[in-house]
């Protein structure tokens, strides 16, 4: 009855890495790409088998555990390389390997002319491997290996075209910013170890669940804040989001992989994984929710005015991740993970669609020089529209359902409130608007590119289009897995949902054993003497209505401003130039960081180099060398070159040793 | 009479018998060799002294005894005197553990038909045979003669090299028997129903070749190659000392043959009733078969070159013996009770393949040779 193949899930891509890294250059291009895709397909198949196996088990036994070998066993630390597959990680591995597989297939077309083709696929596989390791790990330490692994791979892939200085710089930026978060994560991990004496999820969570009040709330809050700080680095939240927009320097499939399947979801996953810790630290939860909401709004605002198609998408990712953290922050972990999943579909679709556009436009990324592409690229246009509608929250698209759940919990949860909800709704409006802007400017209106480019625009090859269509299907229908109860009362929706074999909140129920339910959160909060305010479904419907209206409004506004009256946006910007410039320059955050963090850091480094390193450390080393030199010059005389002198010395030594030993 | 005393006396008697018999065998073997080789070369051989020249060895012995003992100048006297003795002693001593019959019962006591029943007898033989080289090497060195020195040098290198395949083939036999006791090795062959020459056929061939080299006999008699080294290590020896080298060589031959008989030919077992005197006859017959085989080889093979000898030893014999050992071990582990059967089949199959390959290679070489031979007309023209 046991499912013994968990180890295959990370192993498949790892094998792909080795093949492509060591003999990839000997293989034909198609083969090396196919190997990489097949490797990920392999882990997808095993993941789905694992998921089905889980579904076949009774609800309270849905945990598969597999230890491979002892990894570190020293004194107090006893860590195994062990994998765990529970509903949470099952969903994550399926998303990672599924979306990852589609992106690999897409890449085979997209990267077809790149000279470093096998290397690219080796990196992609390594990326997938690290993410799967992170998700499957059964302890913090192994998770940290995957955590660092994705950081490394993001560095390698963002800087894949390292001939371009901007790409190399972006790779370094991603890596360094991530290091800040990782450092906090390590600290959190150490705190956990000191507090609970173990790094295994099972042990730690069991201890918390058994005696929630045994650990002081302050300690718990510190741990959770440190962990969350790690998550902000990985998942691009304020204040560490700055690397993600720059990460657009990498090839587009990489962006898709980072934004949809791997890397940025790691933070959300980690917070959901540690939900037991978080619900016992309400302050930390509030911080999570606050940061999430702030990031959502902040990034959406910046996204309004960006002109690079991928940059807009990048800020939308940051904003959507803010939603997810908001969900986690109000205790709705299942809703957060659900948004991870739906987001994976439509964000992958958006990126691959934009990649398709960029491919067709010969690496042109500025939407000001696009327009009217729908006449040449119907598939891309339609799929891109589907994704836009999904992310904007048009009813019954997957994004609508997951986002509305988040908003509903933000409003109704004991931790939430009107403020969070308002921020979320405003963000939804902004999202709808900027996505409409991008879509209209790219695919509709007058073509604004030059003649030469225009002649070469073409629909993408089949391998790319098919992937787009598959993702579009997911973007439309994924929502039915977790239809809110309120909507189930509307007959056609309920009927459709049942057609998909799901019922109300299927997904949340499935996840409940791993991430808990609202009731669990409420119970935990009660224990900490918090007031619980009861809520009702009537309000849920009303709020939903507000959101829908705002979303439609946003899209309509985009239509008006960019299709009907193309000049109006410019005039609005002119009317408040300071605001426009503020947004266009991303609130000057990069400049702020440069002044506050980078400059002093450089100064300190310069001091350490000139002051400490050269004057102190090098001097010590040189002094040691000189002293050794003097002594060796003295003792050189002992080396006479006569064997028998040495022998005599040995006998003398033996005499002394025997004398000492037998004294 | 206590048990210990009885054993001591029995051992003493057996030792004396063996000593006398072995030494008396030497003239017989000399005569036999001369006769056999002569017949093979279509000569008559010794025929003047006594009937069929039977007394020829005796006459030779008298001649050697009566000869003046010449001691060349500059020899290292001590070593020079000792070397012949050293060459004969290990050969005699090694025979001490060779069994030539089932233990018999005398006056209610068990008497082993070997001088000493040692339960690691085969190792003892190996150890002593490794000492045999001293006699030749030291004789070569002490003679103060460059040819002798070269002979001794060659002998030491050759015997160290060929010791290894001998040891490895012996180990394969030991694996089959599961014992180091020579008695056990014989009995195991009877028990498994087929003599070790079957399951260890390749090993047997290797042993025969390698022991021939150990014996310093043609075609491996590099230490006394008269066409290159006058008479090699014994150039400077005359008279009785020279005779001792001779005796050493022949006694060694008997010991090696006896060992081969014990290891591969089922020792004293044969057809007919299982009584000790018949067994003894079987044993002697087998030994003589071996000895005549060695003589046959000597008569029909030309001496090979020294580098060929060493190359053959290191590049063919040792790898082959190692493979034989490894294969034997694997088959024993895998096939367990059926190991003998499998080993026999594998050995015969391998041997057939080997012969086929040899034939192929030979015919190809002949072909090339034919093409190279110039036409008579062309030479004349």
């Amino acid at each position, binding site marked *: 009855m046991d499912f013994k193949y968990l180890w295959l899930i990370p192993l498949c891509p790892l094998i792909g890495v080795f093949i492509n890294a060591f003999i990839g250059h000997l293989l034909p291009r198609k083969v090396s790409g196919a190997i990489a895709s097949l490797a990920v397909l392999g882990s997808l198949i095993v993941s789905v088998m694992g998921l089905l196996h889980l579904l076949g088990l009774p609800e309270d036994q849905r945990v598969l555990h597999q230890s491979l070998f002892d990894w570190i066993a020293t004194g107090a630390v006893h860590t195994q390389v062990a994998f765990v597959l529970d509903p949470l990680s099952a969903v994550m591995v399926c998303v990672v390997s599924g979306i990852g597989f589609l992106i690999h297939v897409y890449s085979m077309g997209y990267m077809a002319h790149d000279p470093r083709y096998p290397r690219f696929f080796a990196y992609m596989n390594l990326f997938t491997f690290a993410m799967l390791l992170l998700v499957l790990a059964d302890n913090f330490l192994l998770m940290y290996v995957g955590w660092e692994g994705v950081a490394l791979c993001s560095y390698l892939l963002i800087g894949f075209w390292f001939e371009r200085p901007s790409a190399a710089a972006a790779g370094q930026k991603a890596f360094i910013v991530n290091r800040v978060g990782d450092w906090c994560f390590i600290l959190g991990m150490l705190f956990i170890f000191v507090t609970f004496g173990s790094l295994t999820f099972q042990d730690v969570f069991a201890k918390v669940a058994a005696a929630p009040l045994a650990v002081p709330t302050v300690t718990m809050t510190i741990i959770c804040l440190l962990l969350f700080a790690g998550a902000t680095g990985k998942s691009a939240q304020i204040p560490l989001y700055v690397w993600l927009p720059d990460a657009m320097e990498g090839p587009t499939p990489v962006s898709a992989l980072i934004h949809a399947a791997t890397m940025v979801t790691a933070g959300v996953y980690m917070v959901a994984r540690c939900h037991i810790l978080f619900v016992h630290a309400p302050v930390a939860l509030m911080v999570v929710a606050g940061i999430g909401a702030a990031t959502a709004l902040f990034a959406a605002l910046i996204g309004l005015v960006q002109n690079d198609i991928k940059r807009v998408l990048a800020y939308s990712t940051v904003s959507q991740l803010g939603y997810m953290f908001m969900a986690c922050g109000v205790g709705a972990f299942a809703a957060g993970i659900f948004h991870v999943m739906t987001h994976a579909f439509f964000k992958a679709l958006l990126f691959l669609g934009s990649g398709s556009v960029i491919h067709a436009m010969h690496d042109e990324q500025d939407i000001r020089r696009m327009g009217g592409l729908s006449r040449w690229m119907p598939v891309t246009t339609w799929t891109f529209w589907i994704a836009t509608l999904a992310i904007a929250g048009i009813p019954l698209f997957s994004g609508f359902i997951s986002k509305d759940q988040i908003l509903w919990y933000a409003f109704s949860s004991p931790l939430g409130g009107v403020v969070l909800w308002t921020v979320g709704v405003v963000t939804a409006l902004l999202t709808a608007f900027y996505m409409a802007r991008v879509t209209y400017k790219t695919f509709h209106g007058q073509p604004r590119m030059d003649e030469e480019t225009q002649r070469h625009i073409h629909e993408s090859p089949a391998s790319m289009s098919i992937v787009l269509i598959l993702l579009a299907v997911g973007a439309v229908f994924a929502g039915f897995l977790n239809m809110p109860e309120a909507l189930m009362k509307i007959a056609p929706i309920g009927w459709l949902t049942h057609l998909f074999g799901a019922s109300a909140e299927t997904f949340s129920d499935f996840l409940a054993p791993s991430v808990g339910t609202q009731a669990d959160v409420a119970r935990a909060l009660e224990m900490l003497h918090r007031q619980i305010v009861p809520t009702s479904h009537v309000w849920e419907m009303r709020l939903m209505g507000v959101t829908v209206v705002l979303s439609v409004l946003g899209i309509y506004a985009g239509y008006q401003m960019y299709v009907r009256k193309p000049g109006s946006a410019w005039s609005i910007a002119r009317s408040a130039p300071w605001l426009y410039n503020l947004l266009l320059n991303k609130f000057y955050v990069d400049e702020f960081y440069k002044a506050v963090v980078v400059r002093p850091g450089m100064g300190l480094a310069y001091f350490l180099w000139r002051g400490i390193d050269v004057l102190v450390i090098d001097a010590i080393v040189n002094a040691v060398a000189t002293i050794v030199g003097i002594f060796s010059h003295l003792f*050189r005389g*002992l*080396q*006479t*070159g*006569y*064997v*028998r002198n040495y*022998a005599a010395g040995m*006998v003398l030594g033996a005499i002394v040793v025997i004398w000492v030993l037998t004294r | 009479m206590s048990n210990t005393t009885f054993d001591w006396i029995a051992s003493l008697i057996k030792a004396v018998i063996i000593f006398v018999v072995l030494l008396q065998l030497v003239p017989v073997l000399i005569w036999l060799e001369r006769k056999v080789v002569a017949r093979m070369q279509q000569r008559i051989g010794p025929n003047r002294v006594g009937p069929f020249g039977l007394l020829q060895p005796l006459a030779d012995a008298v001649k050697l005894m009566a000869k003046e003992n010449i001691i060349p100048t500059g020899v290292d006297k001590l070593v020079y005197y000792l070397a012949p003795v050293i060459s004969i002693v290990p050969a005699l001593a090694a025979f001490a553990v060779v069994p030539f019959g089932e233990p018999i019962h005398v006056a209610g006591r068990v008497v082993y038909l070997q001088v000493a029943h040692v339960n690691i007898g085969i190792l003892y033989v190996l150890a002593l045979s490794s000492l045999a080289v001293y006699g030749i090497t030291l004789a070569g060195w002490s003679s103060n003669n460059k040819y002798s020195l070269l002979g001794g040098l060659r002998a030491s290198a050759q015997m160290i090299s060929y010791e290894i395949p001998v040891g490895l083939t012996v180990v394969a036999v030991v694996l089959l028997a599961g014992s180091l006791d020579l008695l056990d090795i014989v009995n195991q062959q009877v028990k498994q129903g087929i003599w070790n020459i079957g399951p260890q056929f390749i090993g047997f061939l290797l042993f025969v070749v390698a022991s021939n080299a150990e014996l310093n006999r043609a075609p491996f008699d590099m230490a006394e190659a008269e066409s290159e080294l006058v008479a090699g290590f014994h150039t400077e020896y005359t008279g009785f000392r020279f005779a001792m080298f001779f005796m050493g060589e022949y006694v060694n031959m008997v010991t090696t043959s006896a060992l081969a008989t014990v290891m591969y030919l089922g020792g004293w077992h044969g057809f007919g009733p299982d009584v000790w005197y018949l067994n003894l006859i079987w044993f002697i017959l087998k030994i003589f078969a071996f000895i005549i085989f060695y003589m046959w080889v000597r008569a029909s093979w030309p001496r090979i070159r020294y580098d060929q000898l060493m190359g053959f030893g290191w590049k063919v014999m040792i790898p082959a013996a190692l493979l034989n050992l490894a294969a034997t071990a694997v088959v024993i582990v895998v096939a367990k009770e059926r190991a003998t059967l499998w080993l026999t089949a594998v050995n015969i199959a391998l041997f057939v393949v080997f012969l086929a390959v040899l034939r192929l290679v030979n015919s190809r070489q002949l072909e090339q040779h034919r093409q190279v031979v110039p036409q008579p007309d062309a030479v004349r023209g």
Partner: protein
Amino acid sequence: MDIYSAVPFSAWLALSGLLFTIGAIGFLIRRDPIVMFMCIELMLNAGNLLLVASARYRAVMDGQIYVFFVMTVAAAEVAVGLAIIVAIFRQRLDIDVDEMSEMRG
């Protein structure tokens, strides 16, 4: 042979020590590297004797295993050492250790 009751363990120890010392002195006073090598072999054998005697004395066979290893190492050492001597001889046609002091510091 009932040698154990007559000869005490200390006699074996003394013999071993004596042989070792002879080997050590030999190594110190001879200049022919081959003889020096043989003196090393003598010292190793003295050690072996001690090991075997101790094994018998404690009725534990581990000492004999050590002897086995010592012999293996000795064989390896002789192979390499003699090869070095031959190599040196080929180059210098003389093997007096006191002439070989190029490694002087």
